[in-house]
């Protein structure tokens, strides 16, 4: 009876310790003003993307050539119109959806396949590790954006293809981060103990190694979302991204580039939207890294 009570006490202690650690982390993260600002920007982006139909003043693809290239504030168009007479503000609002969808989905894609490869490579080691890492090295021999461009040129325009192209380009980075973590963790004493107690490989991997690799993975994934959003905008800017007339900040910038003299605000505003979003995610990512472990090399 006493033993059971002791065990319960120990479990409660552990739970308190975990909760205290989580509270300390949240405090540390939110006390960092830059991280809080970044979180605010991310929150605004998510709200804009979800409530786009309520926030937008016009349907994003509604054309009216009699009202093309209007300046900001004219005829009920908050940020003016583009060359087809479409409302710039509404297209910016809807463009946040594409950025968010691509940013998150491409990183999830890269994180899933990259982490699997990294886990197998680091845990199994030997020849398997050598083969996987040579493939990863080969993928890393392409500058990130170039690999995405080449994939898009073959796959063709479209949202799903953009996610695949950027997701594939993200795989090697995640594989490296996770492999590094696995190599460190699998040598630690508690893994040795777990193994000697007869734990199976699956249990060691998914109950011990994966949870302990989460911190750098989360930081790397956050930073990668920023990279994926820029990549989507870059592909759309080159005419290789989502299909027109879907509103994407990159394609709006590309259209705006041709009207720099007549309507400079079109290029300016769409670029600012990309910059502020990416800056917000990077600010939050930096804060997250510092709160989790300032010495983390991600």
């Amino acid at each position: 009876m006493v033993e059971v009570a002791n065990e319960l006490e120990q479990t409660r202690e552990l739970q308190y310790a975990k909760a205290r650690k989580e509270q300390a982390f949240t405090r540390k993260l939110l006390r960092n003003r830059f991280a809080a600002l970044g979180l605010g920007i991310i929150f605004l982006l998510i709200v804009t993307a979800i409530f786009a139909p309520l926030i937008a003043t016009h349907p994003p693809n509604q054309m009216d050539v009699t009202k093309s290239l209007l300046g900001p504030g004219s005829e009920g168009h908050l940020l003016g119109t583009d060359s087809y007479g479409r409302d710039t503000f509404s297209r910016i609002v809807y463009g946040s959806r594409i950025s968010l969808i691509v940013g998150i989905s491409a990183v999830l894609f890269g994180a899933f396949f990259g982490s699997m490869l990294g886990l197998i490579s680091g845990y199994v080691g030997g020849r398997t590790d050598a083969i996987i890492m040579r493939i990863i090295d080969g993928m890393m021999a392409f500058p990130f954006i170039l690999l995405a461009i080449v994939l898009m040129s073959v796959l063709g325009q479209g949202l799903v293809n953009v996610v695949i192209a950027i997701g594939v380009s993200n795989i090697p980075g995640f594989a490296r981060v996770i492999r590094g973590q696995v190599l460190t963790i699998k040598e630690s004493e508690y893994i040795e103990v777990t193994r000697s107690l007869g734990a199976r490989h699956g249990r060691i991997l998914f109950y011990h190694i994966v949870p302990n690799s989460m911190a750098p993975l989360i930081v790397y994934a956050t930073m990668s979302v920023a990279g994926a959003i820029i990549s989507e905008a870059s592909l759309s800017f080159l005419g290789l991204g989502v299909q027109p007339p879907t509103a994407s900040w990159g394609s709006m910038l590309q259209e705006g580039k041709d009207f720099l003299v007549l309507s400079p605000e079109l290029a300016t505003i769409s670029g600012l939207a990309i910059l502020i979003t990416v800056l917000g995610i990077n600010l939050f990512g930096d804060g997250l890294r510092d709160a989790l472990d300032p010495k983390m090399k991600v």
Partner: protein
Amino acid sequence: MRTFLLKRSLQLIPTLFVVAVIVFFITRMLPGNPAAVMLGPQASAEDIAAYAERLGLNDPIYQQFFDYLINLVKFDFGNSLSYNQPIVNLIMERFPNTVILAVSALLIAIIVGVPAGILAAKKQNTIIDYLVTTLSLVGVSMPIFWLGVMLVLAFSVNLGWLPSTGMGSLDNGLWAFIRHLILPSLALATIPTAQFARVIRSSMLETLSNDYIKAARSKGLKETFVIYKHALKNALTPLLTVIGLQFSNLLGGAVLTETIFSWPGMGLLIVNAIDKRDFVVVQGSVIFIAIIYVVINLIVDVLYKVVNPKVNLDGGSGGAN
């Protein structure tokens, strides 16, 4: 050192093989008959059949891959249909222009980014530090294609000071050449400048907290001497890796900058080839860039070893990549 060099060079072979495999299969993913895609909708069935034969598309896939590897080893990337010349010639014509752009961007980044990082570390928690930190964070978050467009808007459209596109010829004088180079190199230099400032700041701060720096200070050595003779020397090692990585990125990743400023380099060649559906050019150019990327990473690894002989890179997979 010789063993390391040999081992690291041998590691290039499987990496380059994987690169070749990736590029070969990506270009084979083209939907439909690649010859028909490349010749366009106006091509006759005979022309398509003849071109497919010329590209070896009728051979079994393993035969195609084997021929492709043999040609790669001979540095024969094939012929371009749209440019009507060997792809090697196109690369040799365009690659030096990309190198000019990349080197000038790298120089700007080193000249601006490194002193900014040192200054921020020296004046930690002052207004200068906050300014450098904020600007460098904005810099790494910058969509450079937007910055490029904004530079054109400010300096070409509004002020009319600098040309917005193209590359100046040296025949028209050095100034004409430099005038064309300024805007694209400034745009391209933004991210590396910001990254160098961040790296040098954090590694300087790490070094400055070491005991031997405290010892040097307590001996009464001048602060300037401590910073430049002791701290900077040690803080330079991580910078070297970042410089190497950024240089290879600049050589291969200048696609957007070259497109905005119509700079006739490798990036513009690839984008134009994609527009013209000339996938033989895309294939050859991408492989060439990947080779350059891998070789520069090898050089960075070797330099890293020279600067810091204690570093063990033998067991790694691709080292500083």
